[in-house]
């Protein structure tokens, strides 16, 4: 039996989820400082204003540095942890893995506050580096989760076969394991990049007032005149995300096709 209200609920749910995002480009191209209907004409001024905002450029550059570093570090740490948890048995494995994964459910506020207290009390100067360290802490569990499933789907005999055919541990890792878990590595990298890029709490607490995109955008919303150019920035970020996710999905499907596996569904 079909329930017509289920269909309606799904529609409303999706509308609520995505219509605000659709409003971003509409107002970004609207020739008015006031964000409200009716629209008053088409303009690209807000994009020009955004482009010329020097502080915004610095914030964007900082955010990119942070996100790239965090994604790289988290993914590398994730590779080590996932490999260890899938392949090796060692004392205290369960609690160690549990503690690595804990930040996934730990309120970020607590992580940010306690890190701030500790860093200040041991005399570390707050900088982009402290933000990177903090965000690696919360991104690594995501990387471990994604990479664990990638390593788990790897047949152990493949490694043994490579060793049997004369390869060392390291060359086996390089020639067999790494290419086969590459889709997982890429997925982990992109997820961590995305999480870091829009992360606010740690960026705000540990950034010591350095312009970082998420913090900067939040600050700009205090000035009504700045809102339209922030919407323009939002529009650019949405497009950027769509391209990034599309690329990730393309790579993932190509990876699966290359390895001859069955598609078990990705992000899209």
């Amino acid at each position, binding site marked *: 039996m079909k329930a017509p209200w289920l269909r309606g609920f799904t529609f409303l749910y999706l509308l609520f989820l995505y219509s605000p995002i659709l409003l971003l480009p509409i107002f970004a191209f609207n020739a008015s400082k006031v964000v409200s209907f009716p629209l008053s004409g088409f303009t690209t001024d807000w994009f020009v204003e955004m482009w010329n905002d020097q502080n915004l450029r610095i914030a964007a550059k900082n955010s990119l540095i942070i996100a790239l570093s965090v994604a790289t570090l988290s993914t590398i740490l994730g590779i080590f942890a996932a490999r260890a948890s899938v392949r090796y048995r060692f004392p205290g494995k369960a609690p160690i893995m549990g503690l690595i994964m804990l930040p996934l459910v730990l309120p970020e506020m607590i992580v940010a506050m306690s890190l701030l207290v500790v860093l200040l009390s041991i005399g570390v100067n707050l900088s982009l580096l402290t933000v990177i360290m903090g965000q690696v802490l919360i991104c690594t569990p995501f990387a471990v989760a994604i990479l664990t499933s990638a390593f788990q789907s790897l*047949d152990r*005999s*493949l490694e*043994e*076969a*490579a*060793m*049997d*055919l*004369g*390869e*060392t541990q390291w060359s086996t890792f390089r020639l*067999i394991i790494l*290419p*086969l878990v590459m889709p997982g590595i890429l997925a982990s990298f992109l997820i961590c990049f995305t999480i870091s890029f829009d992360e606010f709490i740690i960026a705000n607490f540990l950034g010591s007032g350095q312009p970082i995109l998420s913090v900067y955008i939040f600050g700009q919303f205090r000035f009504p005149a700045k809102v339209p150019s922030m919407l323009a920035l939002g529009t650019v970020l949405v497009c950027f995300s769509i391209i990034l996710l599309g690329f990730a999905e393309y790579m993932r499907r190509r990876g699966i096709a*290359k*390895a*001859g*596996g069955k598609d078990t569904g990705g992000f899209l």
Partner: protein
Amino acid sequence: MTFSDDRPTMIEFKDVHKYYGDYHALRGINGTIKAGEFFSLLGPSGCGKTTLLRTIAGFEDISSGVIMIDGKDMAGVAANVRPTNMVFQSYAIFPHMSVAENVGFGLRKDPRSKEEKAKAVAEALEMVGLKGYGNRAAHALSGGQRQRVALARALILKPKVLLLDEPLSALDKKMREHMQVELIKLQRQVGITFILVTHDQEEALVMSDRIAVMFEGEIAQLADPETLYRRPNSKKVADFIGTMNFIPTTVLSESNGSVEIEAKGLGRATLDASMAPPAKGESPVVGLRPETLTLLYDDQKATERETDGVIDEVIYFGDMTYYDVYLGGTDVEVRLSMRNVPGRPVLEVGDKVRVAWSPSALVLFR
């Protein structure tokens, strides 16, 4: 004198033990595998046969004892430098490479030129019947083709020993029988020592020069297929290989070279000492194979001995019929097999029959 007796030794086990924590997986393995031999490790799952194979390959360390390959102690020798190559149960074909890249994988550090390597790959593929498959993607192959790629990949390095871990278990029955014959032919062609792990006793009998039957981490018997089938050295081995009837028996007397017994339902018989393996302290039984028993039709007479019986069960197989028969008015039931030839009717349950048997086919377990 069998095939294997006059060959040089390729692998030697000296009191090999393997522990996983408290679990004693290999309990004192001794024995030799000859060069150029098709050798099988046969046993039920969990008997240690795969563990033993993996200790030869170097994937598992041994807890104590010595494994020698071609006269060299393998202690501390890593898998990637041992003169062995393995065909894995899952075949372990590298999915991100082509067939040719898979087969040529082991040649990476080979100093030969690119052209020479390509030629070697082509030859290896031809040997396993996959000529012209080099450019195919490995993941697009069927199960049987994957197996051939795995074989070519292992054999291209010309190992002294090829290890096969249940290589046929993933194939369907027809394909399996086909590959059995192909593997035998391939082994004769390349002359490399093959060591096959299998739980399928029929497969072991068909393919091997010699077989080690393993139970619970020990080799129960190491012999050629015929000896294993005709003269198993224990009830357990007899039970594992083929079908064997066991009949409660009393040992009457024992003299040099022969044993006098009385088997329930069969009566007295004299056994050659070779058919009475060393005593294990069990209650005595004699074993006899279904095909050594024959139903006598009206006009036939037994060449050696005969016993009355009543048919309890008839199992029809087309070319053969199996009969379960109570012997000589006792509760001893034996299974016997008869070929279904024209003019010989299939008998029915409850029919009174005469069963011919030969004392020389009896094996005594005690």
